[in-house]
């Protein structure tokens, strides 16, 4: 069936089978491969994108369920060559190694800061508890979110 989804502000249309998962739609149709596809069982969080501003696991959402909703992926974070503060925070605080979990972590924590600009360490840890990182031990991810929160409130958007 024909489905049309707003992804990062652009309307993307394609004739798909209803069983197509959102993660595959995103990766195949506009070719946005920043959204990673990991466990496929809604446990790892690599596939997290924002649906109407809220993080959801795109491996456990059908593409057809997203028509009429706004999907935001990791590719939307950088604007005109400027990194989002959360991306900058991951860079500054060395919050990734292999980078596999990173797109999901970035989108999850972007949504956290949108809702709660000044989260405590515990709030950050709770927010990212749906994501698994095999490399960092989470410590630097937490530090990165704090960095982003501090710099965001100062209104800084660094150039790449």
């Amino acid at each position, binding site marked *: 069936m024909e489905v049309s989804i707003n992804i990062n502000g652009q309307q993307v249309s394609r004739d798909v089978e*209803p069983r197509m998962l959102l993660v595959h739609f995103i990766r195949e149709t506009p070719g946005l491969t920043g959204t990673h596809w990991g466990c496929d069982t809604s446990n790892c969080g690599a596939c997290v994108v924002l649906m109407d501003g809220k*993080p959801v696991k795109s491996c456990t959402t*059908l593409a057809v369920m997203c028509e009429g909703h706004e999907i935001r992926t990791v590719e939307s974070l950088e604007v005109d060559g400027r990194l989002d503060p959360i991306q900058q925070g991951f860079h500054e605080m060395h919050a990734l190694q292999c980078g596999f979990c990173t797109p999901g972590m970035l989108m999850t924590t972007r949504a956290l800061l949108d809702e709660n600009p000044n989260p405590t360490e515990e709030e950050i840890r709770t927010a990212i508890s749906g994501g698994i990182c095999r490399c960092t031990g989470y410590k630097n991810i937490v530090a990165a979110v704090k960095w982003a929160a501090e710099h965001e409130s100062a209104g800084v958007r660094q150039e790449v």
Partner: protein
Amino acid sequence: MQTPASFDYERATSVEGAIASLARLGPEARVIAGGHSLLPMMKLRLAQPEHLIDINDLEAELSYIRDEGGEIAIGALTRHVDLLKSELLAQHFPVFRDAEEVIADPVVRNRGTIGGSLCQADPAEDLSAVCTAVKAKAVIRGTDGQRVVPMDEFHVAPYMTAVNDGELLTEIRLPLFPGAGSAHEKVERRAGDWAIAAASAAVWVDRSTIHDVGIGLSAVGLTTVHLKRAEELLRGKPPSEELFQQAGQVASEDCSPMADGRGPVDYKRHLAGVLTKRALSRATARALKQEA
């Protein structure tokens, strides 16, 4: 790659329309709410519906938590995140917030619904124990109108509920009585995991005696375990740690866990006992306003 088998998809635009579609399409049709139990089952071919009826557009009709005087009504499409954040629920039934803090993870909680949780009827599912403890009633609607079913009749077998083909769970009702306190206690292997065992308790205290009590257990039986014998033991008695200890003993005797990757039978029985006691203590402290 895991992909569900093929199916037809339609979006319901009203509760009535959803029920009409379910009735027309028969047993091969399923409702999809958050999809966080159904889609994993479909990927594994444990479920293979031919038609999916998406009810996510029915938020106006099916997503709410409201005080209806004498009871709290919760729409079936209310998501975990909304149950977690509801001050109304936290005030009357803090057991919901206890449970929601440990159901899955915040991202899953943005999608999963109370209706999907109850209808999935997984014995390890937390909200079924919660609803059993607080003596909730389920409102089920079909083409011939609606019926109201108590939790004991809602769960008929593992993964089977009183919701028949052609019917929709529309609402959960929680009766309000004075002197209430409630709590949920869960032990899991890691953050966001299903329970090894969990206990939900609600007490209604009247002049320092337990006027009424409800206890439900998750993950230690073929379905949610309703601890009727422990409830009998407690009713009409003044609350005490010793009494709760005895109720915990009954809990470990009356559950029927199975050994699996989450632990052996004796450990789960032990947990059922300890968690029942803890849930009762905390519920009672809340009823007596002894807990912050």
